[in-house]
Protein backbone atom coordinates (compact mmCIF):
# COMPACT_ATOMS: atom_id res chain seq x y z
CA UNK A 1 0.00 0.00 0.00
CA UNK A 2 1.25 3.44 -0.92
CA UNK A 3 2.32 5.70 1.89
CA UNK A 4 -0.29 8.12 3.17
CA UNK A 5 0.71 11.75 3.23
CA UNK A 6 -0.72 14.95 4.67
CA UNK A 7 0.16 17.54 2.03
CA UNK A 8 -0.46 21.04 0.73
CA UNK A 9 -2.22 20.92 -2.57
CA UNK A 10 -2.93 23.69 -5.00
CA UNK A 11 -6.12 23.97 -6.99
CA UNK A 12 -4.70 24.12 -10.51
CA UNK A 13 -8.01 24.14 -12.39
CA UNK A 14 -11.72 23.87 -11.76
CA UNK A 15 -14.69 23.29 -14.06
CA UNK A 16 -18.40 22.69 -13.71
CA UNK A 17 -19.96 19.32 -14.26
CA UNK A 18 -23.22 17.52 -13.49
CA UNK A 19 -25.20 20.72 -12.96
CA UNK A 20 -23.88 22.27 -9.75
CA UNK A 21 -20.85 20.05 -9.13
CA UNK A 22 -17.19 20.84 -9.72
CA UNK A 23 -14.25 18.92 -11.10
CA UNK A 24 -11.25 20.13 -9.15
CA UNK A 25 -7.72 19.47 -10.40
CA UNK A 26 -5.17 19.35 -7.62
CA UNK A 27 -1.42 19.18 -7.31
CA UNK A 28 0.33 16.52 -5.25
CA UNK A 29 3.86 15.86 -4.00
CA UNK A 30 6.06 14.27 -6.60
CA UNK A 31 5.41 10.57 -7.08
CA UNK A 32 2.33 10.32 -4.89
CA UNK A 33 -0.20 10.29 -7.71
CA UNK A 34 1.41 7.28 -9.38
CA UNK A 35 0.51 5.20 -6.33
CA UNK A 36 -3.17 6.22 -6.29
CA UNK A 37 -5.65 3.52 -7.21
CA UNK A 38 -9.29 3.67 -8.34
CA UNK A 39 -11.68 3.46 -5.37
CA UNK A 40 -9.25 5.20 -3.05
CA UNK A 41 -10.07 8.58 -1.63
CA UNK A 42 -8.47 11.61 -0.03
CA UNK A 43 -9.63 13.67 2.94
CA UNK A 44 -9.83 17.43 2.48
CA UNK A 45 -9.67 19.96 5.30
CA UNK A 46 -12.55 22.32 4.50
CA UNK A 47 -11.66 25.30 6.63
CA UNK A 48 -9.19 28.16 6.90
CA UNK A 49 -6.36 28.51 9.37
CA UNK A 50 -7.67 29.87 12.63
CA UNK A 51 -11.09 28.29 12.38
CA UNK A 52 -12.01 24.91 13.85
CA UNK A 53 -15.49 24.73 12.41
CA UNK A 54 -16.08 22.49 10.49
CA UNK A 55 -13.60 20.44 12.44
CA UNK A 56 -13.24 17.21 10.50
CA UNK A 57 -12.01 16.50 7.00
CA UNK A 58 -14.33 15.47 4.19
CA UNK A 59 -13.55 12.34 2.14
CA UNK A 60 -13.64 12.54 -1.69
CA UNK A 61 -13.05 9.67 -4.08
CA UNK A 62 -10.38 9.95 -6.73
CA UNK A 63 -12.04 10.82 -10.03
CA UNK A 64 -8.92 10.83 -12.19
CA UNK A 65 -5.15 10.90 -11.85
CA UNK A 66 -2.40 12.39 -13.98
CA UNK A 67 0.82 10.87 -12.63
CA UNK A 68 2.98 12.54 -15.27
CA UNK A 69 2.01 15.97 -13.96
CA UNK A 70 1.57 15.01 -10.30
CA UNK A 71 -2.10 15.92 -10.45
CA UNK A 72 -5.36 14.32 -9.52
CA UNK A 73 -9.00 15.29 -9.82
CA UNK A 74 -11.94 15.26 -7.42
CA UNK A 75 -15.63 15.54 -8.20
CA UNK A 76 -17.32 17.69 -5.56
CA UNK A 77 -21.02 18.35 -5.27
CA UNK A 78 -21.96 21.28 -3.01
CA UNK A 79 -24.12 19.73 -0.35
CA UNK A 80 -23.41 20.91 3.17
CA UNK A 81 -20.88 23.23 4.75
CA UNK A 82 -17.73 21.32 3.83
CA UNK A 83 -18.47 20.77 0.17
CA UNK A 84 -19.91 24.28 -0.25
CA UNK A 85 -16.71 25.75 1.10
CA UNK A 86 -14.62 23.51 -1.11
CA UNK A 87 -16.71 24.39 -4.16
CA UNK A 88 -16.06 28.07 -3.53
CA UNK A 89 -12.28 27.79 -3.49
CA UNK A 90 -10.69 29.15 -6.63
CA UNK A 91 -7.69 28.06 -8.67
CA UNK A 92 -4.53 29.15 -6.90
CA UNK A 93 -5.92 28.37 -3.45
CA UNK A 94 -4.14 25.73 -1.40
CA UNK A 95 -5.86 22.88 0.39
CA UNK A 96 -4.64 20.58 3.14
CA UNK A 97 -5.13 17.01 1.95
CA UNK A 98 -4.64 13.61 3.59
CA UNK A 99 -4.28 10.58 1.37
CA UNK A 100 -4.47 8.44 -0.59
CA UNK A 101 -6.67 6.42 1.76
CA UNK A 102 -8.59 3.17 1.66
CA UNK A 103 -8.53 0.07 -0.45
CA UNK A 104 -9.33 -0.02 -4.15
CA UNK A 105 -11.51 -1.57 -6.80
CA UNK A 106 -9.52 -4.53 -8.11
CA UNK A 107 -9.79 -5.89 -11.65
CA UNK A 108 -9.13 -9.63 -11.67
CA UNK A 109 -6.51 -10.75 -14.19
CA UNK A 110 -9.03 -12.87 -16.05
CA UNK A 111 -11.85 -10.32 -16.23
CA UNK A 112 -12.81 -9.23 -19.75
CA UNK A 113 -16.16 -7.52 -19.18
CA UNK A 114 -16.83 -5.03 -16.42
CA UNK A 115 -20.14 -3.50 -15.46
CA UNK A 116 -20.16 -0.23 -13.51
CA UNK A 117 -23.24 1.22 -11.86
CA UNK A 118 -23.02 4.83 -10.74
CA UNK A 119 -25.44 7.08 -8.87
CA UNK A 120 -24.78 10.80 -8.46
CA UNK A 121 -21.26 11.70 -7.28
CA UNK A 122 -20.71 7.97 -6.92
CA UNK A 123 -19.70 8.30 -10.55
CA UNK A 124 -16.27 9.59 -9.47
CA UNK A 125 -14.32 6.44 -8.56
CA UNK A 126 -15.87 4.52 -11.44
CA UNK A 127 -14.56 7.07 -13.93
CA UNK A 128 -11.04 6.37 -12.75
CA UNK A 129 -11.71 2.64 -12.71
CA UNK A 130 -13.07 2.67 -16.26
CA UNK A 131 -9.95 4.47 -17.46
CA UNK A 132 -7.71 1.84 -15.93
CA UNK A 133 -9.87 -0.92 -17.37
CA UNK A 134 -9.83 0.48 -20.89
CA UNK A 135 -6.07 0.98 -20.66
CA UNK A 136 -5.82 -2.76 -19.94
CA UNK A 137 -8.06 -3.59 -22.90
CA UNK A 138 -11.01 -4.69 -20.77
CA UNK A 139 -14.54 -3.96 -22.00
CA UNK A 140 -16.58 -1.62 -19.82
CA UNK A 141 -20.27 -0.85 -19.67
CA UNK A 142 -20.91 2.19 -17.49
CA UNK A 143 -24.47 2.78 -16.29
CA UNK A 144 -25.31 6.04 -14.64
CA UNK A 145 -28.47 7.28 -12.97
CA UNK A 146 -29.49 10.78 -11.96
CA UNK A 147 -32.56 12.94 -11.39
CA UNK A 148 -32.39 14.61 -14.78
CA UNK A 149 -30.21 15.02 -17.86
CA UNK A 150 -28.35 17.98 -16.41
CA UNK A 151 -27.08 15.97 -13.46
CA UNK A 152 -25.53 13.24 -15.59
CA UNK A 153 -21.86 12.83 -16.30
CA UNK A 154 -21.22 13.84 -19.93
CA UNK A 155 -20.17 10.95 -22.17
CA UNK A 156 -16.97 12.86 -22.89
CA UNK A 157 -15.88 12.23 -19.30
CA UNK A 158 -15.42 8.54 -20.08
CA UNK A 159 -12.96 6.84 -22.44
CA UNK A 160 -14.39 6.43 -25.94
CA UNK A 161 -14.25 2.63 -25.66
CA UNK A 162 -16.72 2.61 -22.77
CA UNK A 163 -20.36 1.76 -23.49
CA UNK A 164 -22.26 4.47 -21.58
CA UNK A 165 -25.96 4.11 -20.78
CA UNK A 166 -27.96 6.44 -18.62
CA UNK A 167 -31.22 6.56 -16.71
CA UNK A 168 -32.99 9.68 -15.45
CA UNK A 169 -35.86 9.81 -13.01
CA UNK A 170 -37.66 12.45 -15.05
CA UNK A 171 -36.93 10.70 -18.34
CA UNK A 172 -35.15 13.72 -19.79
CA UNK A 173 -32.36 11.47 -21.09
CA UNK A 174 -31.96 7.70 -21.58
CA UNK A 175 -34.09 5.24 -19.67
CA UNK A 176 -36.87 6.79 -17.57
CA UNK A 177 -36.48 5.39 -14.09
CA UNK A 178 -33.69 4.05 -11.91
CA UNK A 179 -30.30 3.03 -13.18
CA UNK A 180 -30.62 -0.36 -11.53
CA UNK A 181 -33.38 -1.18 -13.98
CA UNK A 182 -30.70 -1.34 -16.68
CA UNK A 183 -28.53 -3.83 -14.83
CA UNK A 184 -30.33 -7.13 -15.52
CA UNK A 185 -29.29 -7.27 -19.17
CA UNK A 186 -25.62 -7.17 -18.27
CA UNK A 187 -25.39 -9.63 -15.43
CA UNK A 188 -24.56 -12.67 -17.55
CA UNK A 189 -22.12 -10.64 -19.61
CA UNK A 190 -20.17 -9.10 -16.73
CA UNK A 191 -17.18 -10.75 -15.07
CA UNK A 192 -17.26 -8.22 -12.27
CA UNK A 193 -19.70 -5.53 -11.20
CA UNK A 194 -18.70 -2.29 -9.45
CA UNK A 195 -20.98 0.25 -7.94
CA UNK A 196 -20.89 3.53 -6.08
CA UNK A 197 -23.87 5.65 -5.11
CA UNK A 198 -26.52 6.09 -2.44
CA UNK A 199 -27.60 3.17 -0.27
CA UNK A 200 -31.10 2.80 -1.80
CA UNK A 201 -29.36 2.19 -5.12
CA UNK A 202 -27.25 -0.55 -3.55
CA UNK A 203 -30.37 -2.21 -2.19
CA UNK A 204 -32.01 -2.28 -5.64
CA UNK A 205 -28.77 -3.50 -7.15
CA UNK A 206 -28.52 -6.34 -4.68
CA UNK A 207 -32.07 -7.33 -5.44
CA UNK A 208 -31.63 -7.41 -9.20
CA UNK A 209 -28.31 -9.23 -8.96
CA UNK A 210 -29.74 -11.87 -6.63
CA UNK A 211 -32.64 -12.35 -9.01
CA UNK A 212 -30.54 -12.82 -12.12
CA UNK A 213 -27.40 -14.46 -10.88
CA UNK A 214 -27.17 -18.26 -10.92
CA UNK A 215 -23.79 -18.80 -9.25
CA UNK A 216 -21.90 -16.46 -6.89
CA UNK A 217 -20.54 -14.80 -10.02
CA UNK A 218 -20.35 -12.10 -11.15
CA UNK A 219 -19.36 -10.70 -7.80
CA UNK A 220 -20.32 -7.16 -6.92
CA UNK A 221 -18.03 -4.59 -5.32
CA UNK A 222 -19.50 -1.48 -3.81
CA UNK A 223 -17.91 1.63 -2.38
CA UNK A 224 -19.78 2.55 0.80
CA UNK A 225 -20.09 5.97 2.39
CA UNK A 226 -19.75 6.47 6.12
CA UNK A 227 -19.07 9.59 8.16
CA UNK A 228 -15.36 9.52 8.86
CA UNK A 229 -13.05 11.13 11.38
CA UNK A 230 -9.50 9.77 11.05
CA UNK A 231 -9.50 7.96 7.72
CA UNK A 232 -6.78 5.67 9.04
CA UNK A 233 -8.56 3.00 11.03
CA UNK A 234 -7.85 4.60 14.38
CA UNK A 235 -11.18 6.00 15.56
CA UNK A 236 -13.49 3.10 14.62
CA UNK A 237 -16.18 5.61 13.73
CA UNK A 238 -16.72 4.44 10.15
CA UNK A 239 -17.18 0.71 10.55
CA UNK A 240 -19.44 -1.56 8.55
CA UNK A 241 -20.61 -4.92 9.71
CA UNK A 242 -19.44 -7.74 7.47
CA UNK A 243 -19.66 -11.51 7.64
CA UNK A 244 -16.11 -11.33 8.96
CA UNK A 245 -16.90 -8.88 11.75
CA UNK A 246 -16.64 -5.11 12.07
CA UNK A 247 -14.48 -3.56 9.36
CA UNK A 248 -13.41 0.06 8.95
CA UNK A 249 -14.64 1.61 5.75
CA UNK A 250 -11.59 3.88 5.62
CA UNK A 251 -8.88 1.19 5.66
CA UNK A 252 -10.62 -2.15 5.04
CA UNK A 253 -12.94 -0.24 2.67
CA UNK A 254 -14.48 1.85 1.22
CA UNK A 255 -14.76 -1.02 -1.28
CA UNK A 256 -16.46 -4.16 -0.02
CA UNK A 257 -17.82 -7.20 -1.72
CA UNK A 258 -21.56 -6.78 -1.56
CA UNK A 259 -22.19 -10.32 -0.37
CA UNK A 260 -19.91 -9.71 2.61
CA UNK A 261 -21.91 -6.80 3.92
CA UNK A 262 -24.55 -7.34 6.59
CA UNK A 263 -27.10 -4.67 5.75
Amino acid at each position, binding site marked *: MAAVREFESEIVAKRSVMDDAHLVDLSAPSGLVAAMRPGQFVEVLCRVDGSY*DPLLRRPYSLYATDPANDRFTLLVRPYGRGSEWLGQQRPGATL*DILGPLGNAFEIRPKSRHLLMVAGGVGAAPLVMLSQRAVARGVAVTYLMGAMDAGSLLPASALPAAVEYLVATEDGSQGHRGYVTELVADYIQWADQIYSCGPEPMFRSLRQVVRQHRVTREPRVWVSVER*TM*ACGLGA*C*LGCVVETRRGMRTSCVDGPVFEMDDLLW
Partner: protein
Amino acid sequence: MADCSVDLAPRNPRELRLANPVIAASGCFGYGLEYAGLIDVQRLGAFVSKGITPEHRSGNPMPRITETAGGMLNAIGLQNPGIKGFLKKYPPVWEGWRVPAIVNISAERVADFAMMARLLDETPGIAGIEVNISCPNVAAGGYCFGWDAAMSAEVTRAVRQATTLPVIVKLSPGAIDIAGVALAVEAAGADAVSLINTLVGMAIDIRRRRPILANETGGLSGPAIKPVALRMVYQVAAVVDIPVIGLGGIMGVEDAIEFFMAGASAIQVGTMIFPQPTRLMTLIDGIDAWLDEAGFQDLSGIIGLANAGMLARRTAPAVAAAG
Protein backbone atom coordinates in the same frame (compact mmCIF):
# COMPACT_ATOMS: atom_id res chain seq x y z
CA MET B 1 16.43 23.24 22.93
CA ALA B 2 14.53 23.44 26.19
CA ASP B 3 14.39 20.33 28.33
CA CYS B 4 10.88 19.01 27.82
CA SER B 5 11.26 15.60 29.39
CA VAL B 6 8.98 14.71 32.25
CA ASP B 7 8.40 11.83 34.67
CA LEU B 8 4.69 11.27 35.08
CA ALA B 9 5.12 8.84 37.98
CA PRO B 10 7.59 10.50 40.31
CA ARG B 11 6.30 8.45 43.26
CA ASN B 12 6.79 5.19 41.43
CA PRO B 13 10.21 3.49 41.23
CA ARG B 14 9.23 2.17 37.79
CA GLU B 15 8.90 5.79 36.54
CA LEU B 16 7.00 6.98 33.49
CA ARG B 17 9.60 9.11 31.81
CA LEU B 18 8.66 10.87 28.57
CA ALA B 19 11.09 12.58 26.21
CA ASN B 20 8.49 15.26 25.63
CA PRO B 21 5.04 16.08 27.03
CA VAL B 22 2.94 15.24 23.94
CA ILE B 23 0.83 12.10 24.34
CA ALA B 24 -1.66 10.72 21.82
CA ALA B 25 -4.95 10.19 23.66
CA SER B 26 -6.94 7.01 24.06
CA GLY B 27 -9.35 6.13 21.27
CA CYS B 28 -7.78 8.66 18.92
CA PHE B 29 -4.59 6.86 17.97
CA GLY B 30 -5.68 3.23 17.73
CA TYR B 31 -2.81 1.07 18.91
CA GLY B 32 -0.08 3.30 17.52
CA LEU B 33 0.32 1.22 14.37
CA GLU B 34 -2.37 3.02 12.41
CA TYR B 35 -0.27 6.18 12.22
CA ALA B 36 3.11 4.53 11.76
CA GLY B 37 3.07 5.11 7.99
CA LEU B 38 2.32 8.81 8.31
CA ILE B 39 4.30 10.18 11.23
CA ASP B 40 7.26 9.14 13.33
CA VAL B 41 5.34 7.56 16.18
CA GLN B 42 8.57 6.99 18.12
CA ARG B 43 9.02 10.74 18.53
CA LEU B 44 5.88 11.08 20.67
CA GLY B 45 6.18 11.55 24.39
CA ALA B 46 3.90 8.51 24.69
CA PHE B 47 0.65 7.19 23.32
CA VAL B 48 -2.39 5.69 24.99
CA SER B 49 -4.14 2.68 23.47
CA LYS B 50 -7.82 2.44 22.65
CA GLY B 51 -9.80 1.47 25.77
CA ILE B 52 -9.44 -2.24 26.56
CA THR B 53 -12.19 -4.17 28.33
CA PRO B 54 -12.25 -7.55 30.06
CA GLU B 55 -14.00 -9.17 27.10
CA HIS B 56 -14.04 -8.60 23.35
CA ARG B 57 -16.54 -5.92 22.31
CA SER B 58 -17.77 -5.24 18.80
CA GLY B 59 -18.91 -1.78 19.84
CA ASN B 60 -22.06 0.20 19.18
CA PRO B 61 -24.18 0.09 16.05
CA MET B 62 -23.67 2.82 13.44
CA PRO B 63 -23.69 5.80 13.18
CA ARG B 64 -21.03 6.19 15.83
CA ILE B 65 -19.72 9.67 15.14
CA THR B 66 -21.03 13.04 14.09
CA GLU B 67 -19.55 16.48 13.83
CA THR B 68 -20.70 19.41 15.98
CA ALA B 69 -19.66 23.07 16.07
CA GLY B 70 -15.94 22.96 16.84
CA GLY B 71 -16.24 19.42 18.08
CA MET B 72 -17.47 15.91 17.50
CA LEU B 73 -19.59 13.33 19.25
CA ASN B 74 -18.55 9.71 19.40
CA ALA B 75 -20.21 6.57 20.66
CA ILE B 76 -17.77 3.92 19.50
CA GLY B 77 -18.82 1.67 22.36
CA LEU B 78 -15.33 0.53 23.23
CA GLN B 79 -14.87 -1.76 20.24
CA ASN B 80 -11.75 -3.75 21.15
CA PRO B 81 -10.44 -7.30 21.15
CA GLY B 82 -10.70 -7.67 24.96
CA ILE B 83 -7.71 -7.90 27.29
CA LYS B 84 -6.67 -11.41 26.18
CA GLY B 85 -6.80 -10.68 22.45
CA PHE B 86 -5.12 -7.35 23.07
CA LEU B 87 -2.22 -8.88 24.98
CA LYS B 88 -1.48 -11.32 22.19
CA LYS B 89 -1.58 -8.73 19.45
CA TYR B 90 -0.04 -5.44 20.52
CA PRO B 91 2.46 -5.49 23.43
CA PRO B 92 4.80 -7.83 21.50
CA VAL B 93 5.02 -5.17 18.77
CA TRP B 94 5.47 -2.34 21.25
CA GLU B 95 8.35 -4.15 22.95
CA GLY B 96 10.58 -3.09 20.09
CA TRP B 97 9.41 0.53 20.27
CA ARG B 98 11.13 3.43 21.92
CA VAL B 99 7.91 5.36 22.61
CA PRO B 100 6.19 4.47 25.89
CA ALA B 101 2.88 2.68 25.35
CA ILE B 102 0.17 3.30 27.92
CA VAL B 103 -2.84 0.99 28.07
CA ASN B 104 -6.26 2.48 28.71
CA ILE B 105 -8.58 0.13 30.60
CA SER B 106 -12.34 0.26 31.09
CA ALA B 107 -14.65 -1.97 33.08
CA GLU B 108 -17.96 -1.95 34.85
CA ARG B 109 -16.77 -3.84 37.91
CA VAL B 110 -13.91 -3.02 40.27
CA ALA B 111 -12.66 -6.60 40.15
CA ASP B 112 -12.38 -6.44 36.37
CA PHE B 113 -10.18 -3.36 36.54
CA ALA B 114 -7.92 -5.23 38.95
CA MET B 115 -7.90 -8.35 36.77
CA MET B 116 -6.74 -6.35 33.74
CA ALA B 117 -4.12 -4.48 35.73
CA ARG B 118 -2.69 -7.78 36.97
CA LEU B 119 -2.38 -9.13 33.45
CA LEU B 120 -0.75 -5.93 32.22
CA ASP B 121 1.68 -5.87 35.11
CA GLU B 122 3.47 -8.97 33.85
CA THR B 123 3.52 -7.92 30.20
CA PRO B 124 6.63 -6.50 28.55
CA GLY B 125 6.14 -3.56 26.21
CA ILE B 126 3.82 -1.63 28.48
CA ALA B 127 4.93 1.57 30.19
CA GLY B 128 1.84 2.37 32.21
CA ILE B 129 -1.89 2.02 32.70
CA GLU B 130 -4.54 4.68 32.26
CA VAL B 131 -7.70 3.85 34.17
CA ASN B 132 -10.84 5.14 32.48
CA ILE B 133 -13.32 5.76 35.28
CA SER B 134 -15.93 7.35 33.00
CA CYS B 135 -17.72 4.00 32.90
CA PRO B 136 -20.96 2.93 34.51
CA ASN B 137 -20.50 0.98 37.74
CA VAL B 138 -22.86 -2.00 37.62
CA ALA B 139 -22.63 -2.38 41.39
CA ALA B 140 -24.01 1.19 41.69
CA GLY B 141 -26.83 0.75 39.22
CA GLY B 142 -24.85 2.20 36.36
CA TYR B 143 -23.85 5.39 38.16
CA CYS B 144 -20.56 6.47 36.65
CA PHE B 145 -17.49 5.61 38.78
CA GLY B 146 -15.87 8.93 37.93
CA TRP B 147 -18.71 11.08 39.29
CA ASP B 148 -18.05 9.97 42.83
CA ALA B 149 -14.87 10.35 44.85
CA ALA B 150 -15.32 7.18 46.87
CA MET B 151 -16.07 5.00 43.86
CA SER B 152 -13.15 6.51 41.95
CA ALA B 153 -10.84 5.82 44.88
CA GLU B 154 -12.06 2.23 45.11
CA VAL B 155 -11.14 1.53 41.48
CA THR B 156 -7.79 3.23 41.93
CA ARG B 157 -6.98 1.21 45.03
CA ALA B 158 -7.86 -2.04 43.32
CA VAL B 159 -5.64 -1.23 40.33
CA ARG B 160 -2.85 0.01 42.58
CA GLN B 161 -2.83 -3.27 44.49
CA ALA B 162 -2.77 -5.26 41.27
CA THR B 163 0.24 -3.65 39.64
CA THR B 164 3.47 -1.80 40.25
CA LEU B 165 3.19 -0.15 36.84
CA PRO B 166 2.63 3.61 36.76
CA VAL B 167 -1.10 4.19 37.14
CA ILE B 168 -2.81 7.24 35.63
CA VAL B 169 -6.45 7.74 36.57
CA LYS B 170 -8.45 9.48 33.86
CA LEU B 171 -11.08 11.71 35.42
CA SER B 172 -14.61 12.30 34.21
CA PRO B 173 -15.85 15.86 33.60
CA GLY B 174 -19.27 14.77 34.81
CA ALA B 175 -18.09 15.02 38.43
CA ILE B 176 -19.38 18.05 40.31
CA ASP B 177 -16.28 18.28 42.47
CA ILE B 178 -13.49 17.14 40.16
CA ALA B 179 -10.80 18.38 42.56
CA GLY B 180 -12.32 16.19 45.27
CA VAL B 181 -12.24 13.15 43.00
CA ALA B 182 -8.62 13.91 42.10
CA LEU B 183 -7.61 14.14 45.75
CA ALA B 184 -9.37 10.85 46.46
CA VAL B 185 -7.58 8.96 43.67
CA GLU B 186 -4.28 10.54 44.66
CA ALA B 187 -4.77 9.24 48.18
CA ALA B 188 -5.74 5.85 46.77
CA GLY B 189 -2.37 5.51 45.05
CA ALA B 190 -2.65 7.03 41.58
CA ASP B 191 0.72 8.09 40.15
CA ALA B 192 -0.91 10.77 37.99
CA VAL B 193 -4.31 11.94 36.85
CA SER B 194 -5.39 12.77 33.32
CA LEU B 195 -8.39 14.92 32.48
CA ILE B 196 -10.79 15.38 30.86
CA ASN B 197 -12.68 12.59 29.20
CA THR B 198 -15.54 13.60 26.91
CA LEU B 199 -18.70 15.45 27.97
CA VAL B 200 -21.98 13.67 27.30
CA GLY B 201 -23.84 15.20 24.36
CA MET B 202 -26.34 14.53 21.63
CA ALA B 203 -27.27 15.59 18.11
CA ILE B 204 -30.55 14.98 16.34
CA ASP B 205 -31.14 14.17 12.69
CA ILE B 206 -34.18 16.29 11.97
CA ARG B 207 -34.92 14.46 8.74
CA ARG B 208 -34.92 11.02 10.30
CA ARG B 209 -36.43 12.48 13.47
CA ARG B 210 -34.18 10.68 15.84
CA PRO B 211 -30.78 11.05 17.49
CA ILE B 212 -27.99 10.85 14.92
CA LEU B 213 -25.96 8.38 16.95
CA ALA B 214 -27.43 4.91 17.20
CA ASN B 215 -26.46 5.05 20.86
CA GLU B 216 -28.47 8.32 21.22
CA THR B 217 -25.85 10.08 23.33
CA GLY B 218 -22.11 10.31 22.70
CA GLY B 219 -18.96 11.86 24.05
CA LEU B 220 -18.22 15.44 23.03
CA SER B 221 -14.58 16.21 22.26
CA GLY B 222 -12.50 18.73 20.35
CA PRO B 223 -11.86 22.48 20.69
CA ALA B 224 -15.47 23.07 21.78
CA ILE B 225 -14.71 21.54 25.19
CA LYS B 226 -11.31 23.13 25.75
CA PRO B 227 -12.55 25.84 28.15
CA VAL B 228 -14.16 23.21 30.39
CA ALA B 229 -11.08 21.00 30.30
CA LEU B 230 -8.74 23.87 31.09
CA ARG B 231 -10.86 24.98 34.04
CA MET B 232 -10.85 21.47 35.49
CA VAL B 233 -7.11 21.04 35.02
CA TYR B 234 -6.65 24.35 36.81
CA GLN B 235 -8.84 23.23 39.71
CA VAL B 236 -7.20 19.82 40.04
CA ALA B 237 -3.62 21.06 39.66
CA ALA B 238 -4.24 23.52 42.48
CA VAL B 239 -4.85 20.71 44.98
CA VAL B 240 -2.96 17.53 44.05
CA ASP B 241 0.76 16.82 44.34
CA ILE B 242 0.94 14.18 41.60
CA PRO B 243 1.39 15.15 37.93
CA VAL B 244 -1.68 16.28 36.06
CA ILE B 245 -2.04 15.38 32.38
CA GLY B 246 -4.29 17.86 30.60
CA LEU B 247 -6.43 17.18 27.57
CA GLY B 248 -9.57 18.31 25.86
CA GLY B 249 -9.61 20.25 22.63
CA ILE B 250 -5.90 20.87 22.21
CA MET B 251 -5.31 21.80 18.57
CA GLY B 252 -2.03 23.68 18.61
CA VAL B 253 0.99 24.93 20.50
CA GLU B 254 -0.80 27.81 22.21
CA ASP B 255 -3.52 25.50 23.50
CA ALA B 256 -0.84 23.24 24.93
CA ILE B 257 0.91 26.17 26.63
CA GLU B 258 -2.42 27.16 28.19
CA PHE B 259 -2.72 23.70 29.73
CA PHE B 260 0.85 23.80 31.04
CA MET B 261 0.25 27.22 32.56
CA ALA B 262 -2.97 25.89 34.10
CA GLY B 263 -0.87 23.25 35.84
CA ALA B 264 -0.55 20.27 33.49
CA SER B 265 2.81 18.47 33.42
CA ALA B 266 1.99 16.86 30.10
CA ILE B 267 -0.81 16.97 27.58
CA GLN B 268 -2.80 14.49 25.57
CA VAL B 269 -4.14 15.16 22.12
CA GLY B 270 -7.20 13.33 20.89
CA THR B 271 -9.58 14.76 18.33
CA MET B 272 -6.90 16.95 16.74
CA ILE B 273 -5.20 13.84 15.40
CA PHE B 274 -8.14 13.01 13.14
CA PRO B 275 -8.09 16.11 10.96
CA GLN B 276 -4.47 17.09 11.47
CA PRO B 277 -2.29 14.08 12.30
CA THR B 278 1.07 15.60 11.35
CA ARG B 279 0.44 18.34 13.89
CA LEU B 280 1.51 15.80 16.53
CA MET B 281 5.04 16.35 15.28
CA THR B 282 4.78 20.13 14.88
CA LEU B 283 3.31 20.27 18.38
CA ILE B 284 6.42 18.64 19.86
CA ASP B 285 8.70 21.02 17.96
CA GLY B 286 6.43 23.99 18.56
CA ILE B 287 6.34 23.61 22.34
CA ASP B 288 10.12 23.44 22.36
CA ALA B 289 10.39 26.52 20.15
CA TRP B 290 7.88 28.42 22.25
CA LEU B 291 9.86 27.73 25.44
CA ASP B 292 13.11 28.79 23.77
CA GLU B 293 11.60 32.00 22.52
CA ALA B 294 10.03 32.82 25.86
CA GLY B 295 13.37 32.15 27.56
CA PHE B 296 12.56 29.03 29.54
CA GLN B 297 15.23 26.38 30.06
CA ASP B 298 12.77 23.63 30.69
CA LEU B 299 9.11 22.82 30.50
CA SER B 300 8.75 22.69 34.27
CA GLY B 301 9.35 26.44 34.31
CA ILE B 302 5.91 27.17 32.94
CA ILE B 303 3.86 24.50 34.68
CA GLY B 304 1.20 26.22 36.74
CA LEU B 305 2.44 29.75 35.92
CA ALA B 306 -1.15 30.95 35.51
CA ASN B 307 -2.48 28.92 38.43
CA ALA B 308 -2.70 31.15 41.48
CA GLY B 309 -3.68 28.29 43.77
CA MET B 310 -0.84 26.09 42.63
CA LEU B 311 1.73 28.86 42.95
CA ALA B 312 0.55 29.62 46.45
CA ARG B 313 0.91 25.99 47.50
CA ARG B 314 4.36 25.76 45.93
CA THR B 315 5.69 28.70 47.86
CA ALA B 316 4.02 27.61 51.10
CA PRO B 317 6.20 25.75 53.63
CA ALA B 318 6.42 22.15 52.40
CA VAL B 319 4.79 20.49 55.38
CA ALA B 320 3.75 17.50 53.36
CA ALA B 321 7.15 17.06 51.74
CA ALA B 322 7.93 14.03 53.84
CA GLY B 323 4.86 12.20 52.42
